[in-house]
């Protein structure tokens, strides 16, 4: 039987669904019997999914265009592009 400590250490892998089925089964059995570990896993899942869905910093269109222009010159003329980039 897994200990609570072992379950918390495997919790992230459990969320990833990469564990072999025997290990998953062991964790599920433990979770069935242990409300503390159920809570730990619920919270870990919540922060993981929340972080995934948090708004991400987007590059403004005009900044992107400027960057592309600078790089384009170098892409087309790597030999003399180096001087231009500095």
């Amino acid at each position, binding site marked *: 039987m897994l*200990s609570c400590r072992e379950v918390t250490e495997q919790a*992230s892998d459990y969320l*990833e669904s990469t564990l072999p089925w025997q290990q998953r089964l062991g964790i599920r059995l433990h979770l069935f019997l242990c409300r503390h570990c159920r809570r730990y896993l619920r*919270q*870990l899942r*919540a922060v993981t999914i929340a972080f995934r*869905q948090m708004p991400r910093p987007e590059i403004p269109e005009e900044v992107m265009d400027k960057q592309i222009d600078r790089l384009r010159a*170098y892409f087309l003329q*790597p030999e003399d592009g*180096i001087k231009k980039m500095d």
Partner: protein
Amino acid sequence: MGSSPPNEEALIKRLRARDEEAFVWVVRTYQGKMLSLARAIVGEPFAEEIVQDTWLAVIRGLPHFEGRARLETWILRILSNTAKTRLQRERRRRHTHLVWEDNPPFSEGHRFHARGHWLSPPWPWHEETPEALLASEELQRCLTKAVAALPPAQRAVLILRDREGMAMEDICNILEISATNGRVLLYRARAQLRAAIENYERGKGC
């Protein structure tokens, strides 16, 4: 080109032939991810410069790129190495104290009895759902702050996995770490986000 990803082999051919449209598509497609990873490894002040240096290295390297890795993986690996090198240099200059190899274990060991049962169990939150976390600006600030406080390697794995949704295999390839190490870094990062929210819920602030 359109918005659908072009065939990789054809794309690389066009890039080698200095096809401008193909190049612009590649920059637009990968720029966001590159900036995200550069920030994760070396921090905001150097991120843009790292991305630009990476593009120069990519352009120079194109003739030698054999297509053994996917284009994205190859570009991000160049970026990760450029950023790691920069991290070392900035540390010598004392601008940062961060080290890539530094991976302090995040242990909640003190919360368990010797036999592994909870001694101080997880603190209950008002609501334990992603929706509740996303609905609160304060909690999002907490998460953002916790991410910013992570060691670079943990932050890099977390961002590529949970924000960019990349496969662990690709992430380990890009960061040049073992699969086991990747899993450990991800676990430590996520555990610290959970701990940050727990602290907040206990009234200890962020």
